[in-house]
């Protein structure tokens, strides 16, 4: 029996990822977010995108994830997913859309969602080192594997460990640098960014 599509692993996974992002979109629209919330999310997404450009003088060192995590910790899990997914989408308008966009959106979104959930009030304390450790770990163990898995699905026909490991191995150094820079950014400048967010929220009486 010939498969409907030769590359059904890629097809099915792409459909699932699109479905997940679609469900998020539906949930977001249904919630009818208030104007202030919408604008705040747009600002944080734009800041994350711009932060990718500010530090261009150090290759592979990107504070995008640090900005997403701080924003998600401040605004909660649901908005965290929105900020992460939209950052992936919007920054790819600038750095190039491609077959990786849906996975990148999902990976950024999930890290944001997890950050919002883990550091919600009455859960983990929002300590500088705890958030930094979380950011490094989430980048290494969640963002990296998801984006690498997208490459595995794109590069191979039948999922097998034999063909998958060289692709994961090729990604390790990139993920490690990204995770380390996320850790450093969060540890050094996380509190400053969080402070700026909290100050504005207090001043304008948001939540």
């Amino acid at each position: 029996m010939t498969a409907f599509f030769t590359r059904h692993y890629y097809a099915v996974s792409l459909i699932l990822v699109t479905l997940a992002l679609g469900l998020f979109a539906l949930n977001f629209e249904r919630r009818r977010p208030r104007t202030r919330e919408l604008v705040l999310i747009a600002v944080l997404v734009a800041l994350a995108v711009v932060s990718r450009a500010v530090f261009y003088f150090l290759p592979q060192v990107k504070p995008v994830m640090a900005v997403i995590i701080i924003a998600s910790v401040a605004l909660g899990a649901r908005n965290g997913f929105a900020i992460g997914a939209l950052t992936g989408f919007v920054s790819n308008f600038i750095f190039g859309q491609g077959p990786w966009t849906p996975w990148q959106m999902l990976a950024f979104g999930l890290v944001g969602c997890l950050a919002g959930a883990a550091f919600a009030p009455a859960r983990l304390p929002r300590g500088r080192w705890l958030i930094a450790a979380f950011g490094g770990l989430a980048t290494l163990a969640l963002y990296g594997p998801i984006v690498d898995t997208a490459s595995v699905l794109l590069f191979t026909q039948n999922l097998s460990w034999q063909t998958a490991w060289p692709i994961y191995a090729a990604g390790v150094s990139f993920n490690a640098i990204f995770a380390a820079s996320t850790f450093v950014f969060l540890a050094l400048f996380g509190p400053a960014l969080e402070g700026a967010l909290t100050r504005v929220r207090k001043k304008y009486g948001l939540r």
Partner: protein
Amino acid sequence: MPADSSRANAFATLHPALSIGYFVFVIGVTVFTAHPVLLACSVLGALLLSLQLRGLRATAKLLVGLAGLALFAAAINPLFNHQGVTILGYIDGNPLTREALLYGVALAAMLVAVLLWFSCYNQVVTHEKFLAVFGRVAPALALTTSMALRFAGRYLRQLKTITAAQRGLGRVRQGDGYTVRQGDGSSVLSEIRQKNRPPVSQCTRPPVSDRPPVSLRLRSGFAVLSILTSWALESALDTADSMHARGYGLPGRSAYQPFRFSARDAGALALMLACAAVVIVALTSTVVSAQYLPAFLLNQGAGLPGAVRGAITAGAYGAFGLLCLAPTLFNLQEEVAWRISRSTI
């Protein structure tokens, strides 16, 4: 008619929903089937369109950049996948099979085709078109996305102002890296793209030994970013209040639609649907199919009579070939029509 209605990119003047649907279908077939004939059509179509829209230089540059990735894709399968039935030889005791080699080549072609299509997509479906289409389906998300895109450009300009002020205070040194180059201001994207190149100021930067250490540059970089954050959040909340005051989100309000569905769009849609239908029938009946591993099987379809299968196969190849070449032909035809009408004046 939108501003980008140049003859060279007449395809881009079609309704954006059509363009988006076109790219989704062509890229989808390319990625999911990996059929050698369909892949060849796709590579050819994407290459011609890229040459037409982006020119020889940009296309060649993209292809050179893609070569490494394509080589990686072509090599990874034969080297690490030993499933195929035809063994060509042994590397370190592991079999090198013809099927894995073929699949590697098909994958490389697929990647080249997809990335070429995406480079054309970025020329045809600009973000305002994308947002115009999805603004109806997901208005809140489309609005947020479009605001984020607009803010990104504004923040890069504001960064320049903040950096200048900080420099005046002696906190940031000349050529510290995040000087935003003076663009023509025409588009947000071109400005950000320029930012990713080494700035002009790099030419006049002090020698490496005189520059502040990376840790200091990081620190001043983040100082600027945190000033920007405060400014951005405050001005955005004013924007939000202003939107609220003007009745954003109240029921019964409609959005301006910059793109109209014309008779020409209907004709293009009919042609695309006809071609797509033939391809979809051929693929779902598995009359046109390709399997690489463990054995290479081409067009091993359902138990239809040979003549019918031949007709469907030929139809699918023709339809997909036409579909892949359609944008290039459409642009050419517009160019020819323009030349003729100009020469008869």
